[in-house]
């Protein structure tokens, strides 16, 4: 295994984390936009808790890794897809700032809500469209494949968020809210399945990962129906992330020619290793503090 393979592995790992955590944040924004009831919106706001959207760290990680490890790939992707990627970046700006504003001055909530919701839709759509265009190797984000990929990614985010939020709703609100989010999860799960499977066939993804995704998706539907809320987080996440992995496999990236020199990759891996020694324990500490404070809130 070459250094380039390790770098690619880290990038895919970063993308997976961004899809699972950041994606769920986008999805939560979507449900926030469409939620009719105040309780539902409150559950979403509370579950997201924080002010700054730390999950974008995964995106920044992926970008820095890509431009350091595979500079020509980064350059050509950014050149070719600068329009949707710029839109996605502006969506992140709009989302991140409206979110923190709403938290900081709670009485002016409503004004920011719509911007928050719409940008939650725009950003994953653009990312998904670009990812699909890269996967299929032809077309732009506005080609049929791109539009399909955008819609699928947005739906995946919505599904993930709904699955995660059932548990939060039960913890933070009442049984009725939990039931509604369960409904959202079932509905979006079915929509995603209907979108994903024929799509995979159309853009010629032939991978056992499709079966993994489909099975995990079906199991998740059953688990949701049976109120197995913690188990469904795992199977739901697997169903979603295997779509990404299938796309990576379909793209068949051969990056050795584009890879940076070994000295560069060694430096980056070393830095990441040292960084992780500080980051992991401090993240755990923060997480414990945060859990304690939200539990104190809920009571």
């Amino acid at each position: 295994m070459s250094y380039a393979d390790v770098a690619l592995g880290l990038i895919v790992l970063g993308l997976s984390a961004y899809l699972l955590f950041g994606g769920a944040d986008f999805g939560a924004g979507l449900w926030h936009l469409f939620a009719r009831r105040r309780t539902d919106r409150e559950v979403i706001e509370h579950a997201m808790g924080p002010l700054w959207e730390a999950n974008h760290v995964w995106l920044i990680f992926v970008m820095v890794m890509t431009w350091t490890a595979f500079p020509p790939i980064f350059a050509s992707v950014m050149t070719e897809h600068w329009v949707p990627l710029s839109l996605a970046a502006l969506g992140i700006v709009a989302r991140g700032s409206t979110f923190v504003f709403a938290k900081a001055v709670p009485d002016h909530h409503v004004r920011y809500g719509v911007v928050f919701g719409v940008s939650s839709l725009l950003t994953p759509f653009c990312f998904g469209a670009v990812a699909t265009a890269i996967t299929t190797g032809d077309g732009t984000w506005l080609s049929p494949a791109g539009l399909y990929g955008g819609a699928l990614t947005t739906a995946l985010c919505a599904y993930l968020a709904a699955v995660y939020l059932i548990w939060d709703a039960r913890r933070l609100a009442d049984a009725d809210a939990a039931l509604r989010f369960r409904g959202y999860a079932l509905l979006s799960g079915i929509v995603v399945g209907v979108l994903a499977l024929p799509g995979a066939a159309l853009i010629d993804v032939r991978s056992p990962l499709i079966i993994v995704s489909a099975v995990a998706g079906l199991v998740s539907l059953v688990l949701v129906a049976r109120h197995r809320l913690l188990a469904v987080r795992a199977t739901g996440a697997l169903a979603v992330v295997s779509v990404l992995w299938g796309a990576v496999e379909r793209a068949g990236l051969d990056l050795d020619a584009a890879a940076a020199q070994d000295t560069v990759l060694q430096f980056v891996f070393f830095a990441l290793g040292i960084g992780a020694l500080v980051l992991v324990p401090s993240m755990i500490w923060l997480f414990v503090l945060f859990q304690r404070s939200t539990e104190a809130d809920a009571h």
Partner: protein
Amino acid sequence: MSTVQFLAEGAATPADFVAARQQMAFTLGFHIVLASIGIGLPALTLLAEWRSLRTGDRVYAELARRWMKAAGVLFAVGAVSGTVLSFEMGTLWPGFMDKYGQVFGGAFALEGIAFFIEAIFMGIYLYGWDRLSPRAHFLTGIPVVVAGILSATFVVTVNSWMNQPRGFNLVNGQVTDVSPLKAMLNPATPTEATHLILASLMVCGFLVASVYAVALLRDARAGRVDRYHRLGFAIPFTLGAVCAPLQVIVGDFASRFVASHQPAKFAAMEGIEHTQAGVPFKFATIEIPNMLSLMVKFDAHATLRGMDSIPADARPPAEVVKTSFEIMITLGMFLLALAAWWGFAWFVRRRALGRAGRLATRVDLPWKPWFLRLALTAGGAAILAMEAGWTTTEVGRQPWIVYGVMRTTEAVNPSSNLRYGLYAVLAVYAVLAAATISVLRRIRRRPDAGTPQSGPVPVGSAR
């Protein structure tokens, strides 16, 4: 898409090239203010909290909480405006990233790690307010400040590398023998990083002090004395005032470094048209013979290179560089003068307080309305000085994106319609700036209940 294509094509149209540069300048100029506050405000908060621990004075604790709350909001906006910059590196300057991304990528990896540490400890600090012992809580703030300074330093190494590219070889146009460490430790890094960090502390210190100067003037008109406002002014203004003279010294080093390493930029800054010996110092209408040679080389008859020694196609736009340099120097001197007065007034006050029969005029010397009125402008002046200095170094490097190695025209995205990207960014950022200011004003007005739940915390979704 190959490397060669970028080199050959350049921008789609000259207007798109200009738009790309303007967009980068605008978003970076926006971010730099937030980043400065991101470094300075946690430092101010810790200063206040430290005083509160030492003295048990509640006013300090109140200030610390308010500042941290504002720091949280500005951190979030800074995080997203920084994310935009990392997109723009690729969408605007793909040729640059294509060829040299691997040389300075290591610095960005370190920056990312430092930034994440900063974010996590900011979360711990905010959530830990009532959940940790006061001492432990204070200590969790220290990594926020340290990591903030580190992450700024790592980013600046990339810019100093663009001015003094090191740590690689070019063989037949291909980048080889990359050493990320040598790239980061290029000769421009020490002065540039120190200059920028001092600048950001000054921006934050003077800006926060400006806010309280408004309140103090209102108090003065009403004949009130409000200790909260006085301390809210004194702590940040002192931070700025301490940095101001240091900045002048570092700036002097920096300009001498530029004179020896980037003669074109220096000739533009000082408006030296012809290479000559015994160059006079010119500022506005003043002209002192031989002074510039003396200042730069410590020799009144030393020769300095003029713009005529630079090939015509490698000259920066001299007027812009000179004007922005002069703006920076003028405002820097203004801030230095304010800092000197503040030091003097405080000294007089301390001596007067120590004596029997205190002289009210001496004790109140730091709070004279004329001074507060000037201090009110210090925040804006510091921001303007920083932007002017940034313009000096960036425009002074032109036409190179990597000094002497790659032209900016070779780096730009060859797509057409880049200018629409600029318009979109301008529109979104205008709204963002207005909303940020309006939110900060509300934070200032609202009595702070001090509940961390209502405050911002940077952490991922709690799942």
